[in-house]
């Protein structure tokens, strides 16, 4: 797994200990690629941070001087005015230095974040289809938003870490020069501070993970309740849903309590530690003075002050480490993506696709998503320009793979070639290839935006009039007009307010407007109601008369229009020809036709449901090998259903019918016989 998929769901990363694949050195050096563009801002910012740390060290020293001077009481006040001014100037200067440094840093950081994000997004959007398909869209998004954000936090953190380290070292040196015993006492606070931070990160990690999980459950429940609100309402189930939420909510509260316990320990302990430390310093200073009398009050004040300045950065530092570590983890995952090779790329001398010949040739194609799990095997056939080809076969036969994934070059074929005209699709640019091919996918996908914008998606230069014209042709305008704001109705949440049929008809309009030369319709009308579908198909016949069209069919009407029917079975091309030829052949197609297609819309069917073979779960064909599908489905189209059409049944059937239905049925049967 090149991209590091399978590392678990997105945001749990920062709490689960993440094992990174690269050393810190490697990570920093690849981050350097970005950082070096900002070398001057970094130098300036670091410089100002240094100055700030320096003023922070000097200010307490001035206070000490002041105290020492007045201890003698011989001084006049005017002699001390410069000291006061110096004190003010230094603290104010420290503030200015710090501010400037933060300002430079935040400018640089925001710019760098934008750059990393854009590079990453671009890389991802062109990356391997199988990666994008296997990974949840939320996980990929987490790379782009959360990981980059964490990285930026890490960079920002490193400046503050720098100033903290400087403060710690500087304070310690000053402490040592003031009095080494006091310095040693301050040193003793370090392990305690690290202990507190350690407790926080050790227990915190676990507790936060639990709280988050419980939070996730509450959120999931609420999300479901909200998206299923109409169902809940129609069954009067609001109360139950509230109760279910309440239980999860209570669980979340119980875990949050643990978190409260942790906080109770950590923050008060930190402040208690600081108070104890300075009390100890005052005590020890007194004790030192008793014996040697070398410490002035100014020195004691300085020690107390420095010890505080020493303790807080240490605690901050201890707490920064997990954050820094998670920034490195994020960097690691980001580099994973940068280093992944693009699976499908244009050859260096790729040309634009020719525009004269729309014939399509499949030569010896074999394909597997995963090693040796062949979804397609040895497919050979050609399609003449302008031909309408219907593709039939069971779920998992490889229909979608062949046309939606390979012809569009979402994946590269290992064996065999697909050519359009006389050009291998590998020799042309992907961009020109995809402009030539229009694909209507099974799952109607709409973008956030108006209906109009969605239809214009594939043809940005088309006018609104063009859109309306297309919609009129496919009879979409009537329903679009019925929407609250017509063409300007906003599609939100993937079109939750539209039925899947309405969504599908918009996707069809979108592809038609893009006006591709070659068209792939992957069960493109399966979600429409029968009436609309028939209108759309009539329009399609008109619109796509001249185009090479592949229709992955699910209904009789499409098939009967086709000039060529391709039958796929378990990844193999088993039959090809016109409807009549294939019916004469009396093979798989004839079988399919009889059992699947011919019955659609038949007024009544007298098969007993018990006679049907049991259904199975729909398996996503991609992850299942053809062999397995064979195993699961058994001998799918056994002769069982044919019994439905035997004479005895037909007779019984006719007796129950109304006269006009009977008439219709008889006519139909005749037609069918003719076809046979």
């Amino acid at each position: 797994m090149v991209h590091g998929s399978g590392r678990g769901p997105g945001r749990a990363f920062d709490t689960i200990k993440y094992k990174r694949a690269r050393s810190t050195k490697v990570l920093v050096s690849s981050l350097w690629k970005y950082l070096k563009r900002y070398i001057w801002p970094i130098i300036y910012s670091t410089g100002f941070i240094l100055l700030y740390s320096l003023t922070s060290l000097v200010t307490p020293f001035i206070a000490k001087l002041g105290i020492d001077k007045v201890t003698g009481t011989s001084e006049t006040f005017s002699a001390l005015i410069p000291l006061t001014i110096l004190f003010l100037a230094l603290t104010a200067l420290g503030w200015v230095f710090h501010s400037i440094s933060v300002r430079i840093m935040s400018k640089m950081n925001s710019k760098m974040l934008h750059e990393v994000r854009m590079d990453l997004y671009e890389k991802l959007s062109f990356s391997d289809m199988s990666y994008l398909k296997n990974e949840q869209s939320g996980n990929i998004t987490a790379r782009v938003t959360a990981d980059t954000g964490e990285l930026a936090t890490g960079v920002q953190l490193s400046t503050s870490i720098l100033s903290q380290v400087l403060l710690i070292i500087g304070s310690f040196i000053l402490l040592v020069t003031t009095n080494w015993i006091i310095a040693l006492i301050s040193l003793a606070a370090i392990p305690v501070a690290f202990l507190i931070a350690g407790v926080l990160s050790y227990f915190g990690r676990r507790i936060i993970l639990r709280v988050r999980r419980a939070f996730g459950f509450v959120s999931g429940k609420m999300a479901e309740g909200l998206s299923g609100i109409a169902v809940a309402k129609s069954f009067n189930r609001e109360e139950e849903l509230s109760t279910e939420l309440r239980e999860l909510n209570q669980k979340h509260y119980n875990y949050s309590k643990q978190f409260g316990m942790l906080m109770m320990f950590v923050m008060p302990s930190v402040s208690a530690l600081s108070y104890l430390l300075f009390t100890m310093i005052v005590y020890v200073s007194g004790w030192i003075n008793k014996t040697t009398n070398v410490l002035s009050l100014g020195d004691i004040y300085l020690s107390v002050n420095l010890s505080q300045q020493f303790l807080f950065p240490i605690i901050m530092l201890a707490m920064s480490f997990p954050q820094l570590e998670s920034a490195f983890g994020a960097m690691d995952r980001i580099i994973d993506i940068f280093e992944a090779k693009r699976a499908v790329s244009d050859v260096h001398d790729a040309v634009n696709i020719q525009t004269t010949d729309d014939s399509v040739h499949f030569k010896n194609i074999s394909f597997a998503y995963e090693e040796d799990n062949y979804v397609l095997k040895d497919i050979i056939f050609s399609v003449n320009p302008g031909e309408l080809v219907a593709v039939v076969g069971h779920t998992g036969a490889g229909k979608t793979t062949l046309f939606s994934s390979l012809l569009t070059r979402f994946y590269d074929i290992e064996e065999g070639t697909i050519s359009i005209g006389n050009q291998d699709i590998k020799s042309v640019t992907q961009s020109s290839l995809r402009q030539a091919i229009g694909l209507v996918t099974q799952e109607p996908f709409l973008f956030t935006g108006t209906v109009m914008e969605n239809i214009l998606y594939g043809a940005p230069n088309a006018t609104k009039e063009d859109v309306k014209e297309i919609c009129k042709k496919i009879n979409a305008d009537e329903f679009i007009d019925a929407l609250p704001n017509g063409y300007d109705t906003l599609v939100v949440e993937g079109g939750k307010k539209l039925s899947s049929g309405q969504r599908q008809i918009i996707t069809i309009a979108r592809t038609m407007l893009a006006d591709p030369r070659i068209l792939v319709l992957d069960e493109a009308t399966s979600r429409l109601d029968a009436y609309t579908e028939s209108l759309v198909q009539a329009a399609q016949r008109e619109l796509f008369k001249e185009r090479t069209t592949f229709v992955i069919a699910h209904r009789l009407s499409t098939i009967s229009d086709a000039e060529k029917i391709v039958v796929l079975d378990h990844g193999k091309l088993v039959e090809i020809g016109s409807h009549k030829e294939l019916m004469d052949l009396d093979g798989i197609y004839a079988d399919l036709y009889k059992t699947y297609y011919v019955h659609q819309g038949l007024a009544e069917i007298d098969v007993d449901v018990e006679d049907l073979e049991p259904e199975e779960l729909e398996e996503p064909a991609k992850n299942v090998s053809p062999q397995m599908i064979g195993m699961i489905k058994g001998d799918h189209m056994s002769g069982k259903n044919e019994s439905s059409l035997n004479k005895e049944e037909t007779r019984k059937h006719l007796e129950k019918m109304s006269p006009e239905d009977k008439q219709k049925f008889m006519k139909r049967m005749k037609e069918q016989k003719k076809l046979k």
Partner: protein
Amino acid sequence: MAVITDKKTTSGYNVDIQYELLKKYKSANGWFWSAFKRYPLMYLFGIIVFGASTYLATKTTALIGEALDYLLVEGFSTNFNKTIGLMIIYVIISWACLSSGAYVWSIASFRVQRDMRQEFYEVIQDHSMAFFDVNDSGVILSMGMNEINQIRMAIHPSIRMLMTSIFSIVITTVFLWQYDFIIGVTVAVSFVVYLIIAWIYASKVGPIRRKLAKDLADLSATSQEMFRGIDVVRSFDNHNKEINKFGYISNEYALDMKKEGYLSAFYWPALITIVFTAASFGYGIWLVIEGSFSIGIFISVLALLMALSRQNFMIPMRLIMLQAGLQNSKRLWDSMAFKDPLTQPEKPVESEWNKKISFNNISFAYPSTDKKVLDNLSFQIQAGARVALIGGPGSGKSTILKLLLRLYDPTEGDILINGVSMSSMHTSHVRSNVTMVEQDIFLFSDTLKANISFAKRDATDEEISKAAERAQISQFIESLPNQYDTVIGERGVTLSGGQRQRVAIARALLSNPKLLLLDDSTSAVDIKTELRLRKAMDELMKDRTSIVVTQRLTTLVAADMIILMKKGRIVDIGSHTELLERCQDYQFMCQHLPITNGSVASNDVGGRN
């Protein structure tokens, strides 16, 4: 805990949660601050111990000077040791107070968070569909989860820490006052000024922070959409368009981030503390030379001021959090106080649903839109009738079903059930008599059992399997390893469209409605599904009034009454035969239904003209 829903009114219906809430808290602020009224003792305890702990901590700091004065005058004396001992005791007590207070405070706040979240969900859930039509469910979810969290964070830790800061300011001021009047007054005044300026500052940073959060959400949404629709993006070769879209938002984010960085870089309220600390330093020195301050006191003053300026860095953060919490509670409150066009009648009446249903001059436009999707409909449905609704997309068929569930009230006109207007009925009365099987079936990601018994939680296993059997889905369910305990949806197995539809039919069967609404527009793909579905539907329609949106010829033929609709109006009403005789639209439609489709018998209907 919020258990409003458990209450019942005298008429036996649930109380109007929204009404109760609005009455109880009155405003967004009332709702926010009600946190302290919900667990008053816990918060009171918190306030007292925080006061104590802050006092002791400040006292400890102040004692430094005293100790040093002893040291200066008496050397390493008993008094010095006593003072040190006192300081240690104070620190320990202060620690104990702070810990227990923080714990109690956080628990109370987590309770508030839990209760508010529950309250929010219950009120929102009770809104009619008018609310859900105009509000993005993702946004509502984020309100219920993240924004409630932020409200809690405003209380804990934000208010807690602000309170501690104010305690230290007040107590420090009192201490300084005792040393010297002028220093005390100066500190008091400048901290008030400081707080005001800090509040203004926070009001500037707050919106940028929120803008950043919004930018990030937009960024996620854009990216998520692109990766979900990657096939579409790729097949239209629109990568650059998507990258630009993302780039625009990413740039927006970067700009806002820079803006925020600039603002927080120059935290100018800090200058106030810097100036007066320096001034106090000079003034203190002068007092010492004057002789009115001992050096110890001078050091105490300095130490106290240093401790105060450490608050510097935390106060703005907390103010921002508090403002965010207040703003969020305003947003949540506005959502909760949504003025619902559909209200429950004050004195709900009931009706008999197995009687006549009549539509009297019904017109309807979806809330907050003008477009009439139903235009002056009148018709009557006899008890026990099978009604079929047919019409093109957007003709208003599904809307009729929604009105009958009282998901909306008609804009004009009245729907009478046995002579009783639907708008005078409580929605739960309506919905316990009416069941809808919608077109795009929604199932919960739960077990099959839970999904089937959704309408009747106390259903026995036997009832459930009986319903499944009648819905033609039992065979399938029993073939699964976990049978009825199989979890479906995101975390479980995926069902095909036909299977989902039959699970929904089983669900509807268990609810055993008087009036059945069925949206059956999508046609089945293969014979098996088709057969099972038909049988299931027959079972479902048995012995009750049913209204079916359909294009299935069998259903049309069997219907007692077909209502043909076009653009929100009724074209014709009658039986299949009648309409076939006289209605051109119907004839046209029938021609385009699968039975007469394509090469097979396409002249049938037309032939009889």
